[in-house]
């Protein structure tokens, strides 16, 4: 395996594309890291499904207020200008196209923009949460993910094999190796690590990669 970005570096790269003042929903788990890496001078407003706009960092341990949590049920704080609202309003913000960006994790992303990120199959107790709602409505739905699974299989594929979260919904994928847009049902490589060749990247991807113009180097700081 060639060199690759850490989760923090993937999150950092995704954060660079969030504009000042954008309304953003970060999926629970790994995507929450994106909030740490907002570029100086920019402030996004973060939305959580359970009814808060403009929440901030986690409180110090012992200072949690468990009525003030995010969708992952972690304690948060409020930034000046925060607001509370009920669940129907919260998902009106989602489906109604009011969020600028949603950044989600993935088990698989297809070149068609299909996303599988809620179920690994029929075993156990199924749980969907807000995943199927979040993929609809945000102006940009981006995914952050390792480029391949833990056992080395491609996560960017021609068609998802796992149960779908949504159809044709993902517009950009930030991986541990590259930044890839989904345009007209093709993976278009925008950036890749200089340390790997396009052939190597293609070898780790389960669908054809398209090049439009030049591919920029994917450059991130040590984190």
């Amino acid at each position, binding site marked *: 395996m060639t060199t690759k970005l850490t989760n923090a570096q993937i999150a950092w790269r995704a954060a660079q594309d969030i504009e000042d003042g954008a309304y953003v929903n970060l999926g629970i788990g790994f995507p929450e890291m994106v909030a740490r890496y907002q570029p100086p001078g920019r402030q996004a407003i973060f939305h959580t499904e359970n009814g808060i706009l403009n929440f901030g960092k986690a409180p110090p341990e012992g200072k949690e207020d468990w*009525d003030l949590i995010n969708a992952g049920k972690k304690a948060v704080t409020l930034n000046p200008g925060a607001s509370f609202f009920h669940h129907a309003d919260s*998902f009106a913000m989602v489906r109604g196209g009011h969020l600028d960006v949603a950044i989600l994790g993935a088990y698989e992303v297809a070149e068609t923009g299909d996303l599988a990120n809620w179920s690994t199959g029929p075993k156990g107790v199924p749980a969907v949460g807000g995943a199927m709602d979040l993929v609809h409505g945000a102006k940009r739905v981006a995914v952050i993910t390792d480029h391949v699974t833990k056992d080395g299989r491609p996560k960017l594929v021609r068609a998802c094999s796992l149960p779908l979260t949504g159809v044709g919904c993902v517009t950009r994928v930030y991986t541990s190796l590259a930044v890839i847009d989904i345009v007209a049902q093709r993976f278009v490589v925008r950036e890749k690590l200089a340390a790997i060749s396009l052939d190597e990247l293609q070898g780790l991807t389960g669908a054809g990669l398209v090049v439009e113009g030049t591919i920029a180097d994917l450059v991130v700081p040590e984190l």
Partner: protein
Amino acid sequence: MDKTVAGLPEAVAGIEDGMVVMIGGFGGAGAPIELIHALIDRFRATGSPKNLTVINNNAGNGRIGIAAMIDEGMVAKMVCSFPRSSDPRAFTEKYLAGAIELELVPQGTLAERIRAGGAGIPAFYTPTTYGTDLAKGKPVAEFEGRNYVQERWLKADVALIKAELADPHGNLTYRKAARNFSPLMAMAARTTIVQAAKIVPAGEIEPEHVVTPGIFVDRVVEVRDAAQEEALIRAGVEYA
């Protein structure tokens, strides 16, 4: 106009076998623990209510609240979006044993179905679930070139809700993100039962600040220093 009741047993009176019960809360925030435990007390004393359908975002945590209802065998079916938690044993064991039914509903669809139930809208179309396993068997229609899935309203016999302030008219405010599903459930249930941290005289809640107007509320009981579910879980409390 006085919707206040004297105590928790009176508040949960009339909840019968087979009823559909909406319970407010998202994880521990907004969980009306004292109302739930009063219902469990009645079940332990009388064997009723049982065979309940419970509607909540989750399916209980630890050995308290909804999880304790499930442990007791009071719940025949859960309607929820995320039947997982830091300690999901109660639901998981019953579900894997085939002893409890699950209707899995995406969170936003759950909220909107409850809202629709309260607003007299029998069905609506949403982009959520289109093309997924959870849309199977549901009507699909195209609007402005996109496909949408038809979803139906959710109504309940009873809603159990935790509020911050209430007045005798049933006007309510909530505390922080403990609001979540509660204003919707208050609309969608035939009988809405509220535990409030404080009941204040009519007029003391600024009308501009009322979140749930009293028309949606039937009974109010004051529970001072109410337990917070997440705090109980972290303290290892069990309602056994």
